[in-house]
């Protein structure tokens, strides 16, 4: 299973974290510090796997962002690597040529999307189309709610004028 997902920028800044195994906040900070030190210092032509504390970290760099997933030592590494890519493709499709800034300012969106791709550290949906449909439906629901509340406050505003 995937124990956690980390998105770290080239400068070592945290962009997204999701923990599927229980770690305390203290441990999380330590893990991030340790891993970003190890991963960021690796050259570009090395393999995408890193053995770490009896587990394996599979990572890939997309532009200025490193996507990392930590899996059990006997999990299939290439499979995990393609889960990362699958997630990136979905983000890309959603944001339209996704960049680091999109994820910084819409980290909550990234959480919604991740929740449609992974649950409990396991891959949930392998069809990009299906994920896109669900996210679009969610967005409509929220927009809808917003319009409703807007119109409601308009009504109230007008009534109290």
């Amino acid at each position: 299973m995937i124990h956690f997902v980390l998105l770290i920028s080239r400068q070592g800044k945290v962009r997204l974290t999701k923990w599927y195994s229980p770690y305390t906040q203290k441990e999380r900070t330590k893990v991030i510090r340790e891993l970003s030190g190890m991963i960021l210092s690796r050259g570009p032509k090395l393999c995408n796997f890193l053995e770490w504390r009896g587990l394996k970290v599979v990572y890939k760099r997309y532009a200025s962002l490193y996507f990392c997933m930590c899996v059990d030592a006997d999990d299939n590494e290439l499979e995990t690597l393609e889960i990362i890519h699958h997630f990136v493709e979905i983000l890309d499709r959603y944001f339209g040529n996704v960049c680091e800034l999109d994820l910084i300012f819409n980290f909550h969106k990234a959480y919604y999307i991740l929740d449609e791709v992974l649950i409990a550290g396991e891959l949930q949906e392998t069809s990009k189309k299906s994920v896109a449909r669900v996210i679009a439906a969610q967005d409509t629901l929220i927009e809808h709610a917003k319009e409703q509340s807007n119109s409601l406050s308009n009504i109230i505003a007008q009534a109290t004028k």
Partner: protein
Amino acid sequence: MALSGMRGLSVFISDVRNCQNKEQERVRVDKELANIRTRFKNERGLSVYEKKKYVWKMLYIYMLGYDVDFGHMETVQLISAPKYAEKQVGYIVTSCLLNENHDFLRLVINTVRNDIIGRNETFQCLALTMVGNVGGREFSESLAPDVQKLLISNSCRPLVRKKAALCLLRLYRKNPDVVNVDGWSERMVQLLDERDLGVLTAVMSLLVALVANTPHAYWNCVPKCVRTLERLTRGQDIPQEYTYYGIPSPWLQVKTMRVLQYFPKIDDPTIRKSLLDVLQRILLGTDVVKNVNKNNASHAVLFEALALVMHLDADKEMMSQCVVLLGKFISVREPNIRYLGLENMTRILLVADVADSIKKHQSQIITSLKDPDISIRRRSLDLLYGMCDVSNAKDIVEELLQYLTTADFGIREELALKAAILSEKFAPDLSWYVDVILQLIEKAGDFVSDDIWYRVVQFVTNNDDLQVHAAAKALDYLDKPAVHETMVKVSGYILGEYSHLLARRPGCSPRDIFHILNDKFPAVTTPTKALLLSACVKIMMHCQPPDPELVDQVVAVFRRYESSVDAEVQQRAVEFLALARKGTAFVDIMAEMPKFPERQSPLLKKAEDTDGDASEVSATKIRQQQMQQEQNSTALVVADPQPANGGLHPVSVPKTAAPARHSEQAVTSETPQDSKSFPPSQSQAHSNGGTPQQAPGHTPGSASADLLSDLVGPLSLEAPPPVASTSSSDLLALEAPPTPTAAAATPADSLALALLDSAPTQVQPLGNVSEWFKELTLKDSGVLYEDPYVQIGLKAEWRNAQGRIVLFVGNKHTGPLTNVKSSVLPPPHLRMQSAVVPENIPPRAQVQVPVDVACLSASRETAVLEFSFNVGHAPVSVQLKLPTSLNKFLQVAPVSANEFVARWRALGGPPSKLQEVVRGVRPMPLAEMANLFIRLHIGVANGLDPNVNNVVAATTFYSGTAATLCLVRVETDPSDRTQMRLTVASEDPNTTYELKEFIKEQVMDIPFPGQSPQAATVTPATIPLTGPAAALAGLI
């Protein structure tokens, strides 16, 4: 975008982004937290929009690594909101902010449940996602049945059902009892017919976990899995959206093959055949393509297929096909594929007989050892380690040594250890082994543990033809500038013992060697100084006829350290000075060390232990273990000219190899046991040293002897102790107080020595010593030892890290027991102090010997009591383990369920939490196991674990001033009581490990051998009894 409206959030994020440094960021974050806190306080005026905004901000701050210890209530409340937009925020932030043990989760359990069983599909999805991501025992208990219903419901859409499957997986991981195996396996078979591939993927993940736990219950899923795999690989009926770069869902393929690896065996010939056909197709049909992602995906499938082929134990042809493939992979440039090629080659080596074909790739693998990528170097090192055998050990070890010089720090320790293990395991000849270890010390001295160089000394001592070679090598290394301290130790020792064998070579005169050693003094630590002193005295002794100039120089060295602040160094210097005046007797005392008894290599043992420590249940791992058991140990066997010591083996004492004595203080107390281990050398010593004419010179009152006997309490002589005991009179005085060996001082000795060859008599204990010891582990009073002459009872009191043992030594005999001596040998983790026993115990009398114990750290070792006495003139000596076992320093810890669970979670994984599947457990009902735990002072918490087959317990371990809470969980299998899964957790890794091993020892079924080590230690004392004495003993 949907959230563009949340301006405050964007502003905050860009503020944080614009911070120049960590300090500024903290200030900004603190300001925001203060703001949120005040806003939450007067909640009335808070709009829904603001609430959402603040909760998102909190999550952002938390994600950056800051502690957020408020606002949880507000977050959780959002879950209960009626609208989707708020609920969604509530669910997502809760699942990130709170972990599974958080109390607030209990507050929402009802809302969550209502969302799950309600009609609103979007709410169902949110609730299932949150529960699946957070998990937790309480969720697991109260929600599992509802989640199960959703998964098998016909009316739910795939979207809900796939989430339900993964949610159930999470709950199952937390508590396997949520799935009732009986009915569920049928359900799983039905679920495998699922048409929606998203649901099928989720179901397959669930199945992996189910099968991994109870493979036998899910046999009926095998045919369906094979069919799914066939369908996928043929690409039949796969919707376009479920192909990934043209490959039908590679993830589902991988998962399906993973499930199949958890079934122990697939016997059905038709299913097996169709499965092998599919695998064959994958092996042959995967080509390297240009697109990276397509390539990765197809190779993910290929490597999983390889793993499955290995698991299925396919025929030879298919295996060699795999090896060919892997051989190709390890030589490609693409680093991922190369990494996986190396990794899988190591795996295949463990399950199939392919070593010869893999050896063909040796040079390629060695190239990877020099790869710039540490991940690849690690794999390559592992593979070289795995493929090493007698035929290629020389090449591989030499490669490793060469690499060691350039290897970076992260890998050096492992590298050094592996090289040491391989060289010992597969050495074609011993001189090569010695060379390798010396090189290893030279290149990576910091990583060469003492065990390793002790082993070298052991081999050199036991093999006469090795000594010249070793001495010459040692001299070469020591002559270099800047020598590692470990090198000084091992070389110093070897030169002290054997440099005289080199005396005729140029530059190897005793004087030259002494100068080399002498130069090392300033740079080394005290224990090494002590060792060098001994080496000097030996060199001086070997120099015959004596070289006055050398003697002067050596004596000058001793004088220099005569007043050293270190007791050990000072003592040696003083003793050696005194001994140097002893003339010929000196030569006997400083005679060569006797041969060592055969010991198991601590290194190989360590290697075996780490290999066997696999707690995973993966099928390949189990296979590996079987293979390892089948392999005969090829460990080096030393030709030992000595006869097996009549079944006498010293009780395990806190030392691994004899050279350890250099650094240990209480050395004399060890000597009796050594002397027992070496009957031949001992007899020799007696015959050349113990002539009666020396006895009259025995004047213990003489000034020098007095001085010395005070100083020399724990005497540390390099020479075998028996020699010392029979040499000149002053020495006898020196040695007498602490050693039973001094029994030799009685006049009977000369008699005994005259007839040395007769068979020894033995005093047998009246029962099983180890049984007694085991009893005493569980209770605090009882018999420690009994034979026809003496009974030793024991009573103990324990309080936290302290304890007091009182030994009741009773003379059962009609004559007095004379020359009674007892000494306690504490292991390194205990501090012990014992009272002195009176030298004579009158008939039918009993004396009490109090022993105080303080525990400093956790260890399973126990203290040893050496007890000796004379019956008439017949000396008897025994070594008894004292029940200072780990559990004596434990106290039942009453822990509430919450506290237990919280602690348990907090102690994440190894090394604080260790798990092991223990096999060969003595079958016992749970109540009995609970009882055993209570007797071991481990408090069983009833009802904490809902599974009735589990035992959960807590205890506090006391050491020094520390108290460590230790948690224990035992999961038993009602259908197989001979195995259990044991998990131990505590904050201190060492305590965790020791406690785990201790419990293991206690529950394992270890039959008492007739001649257990303890029983065997009852021996005819240090001096074998001789004809007349034996006859005398018989009369008594």
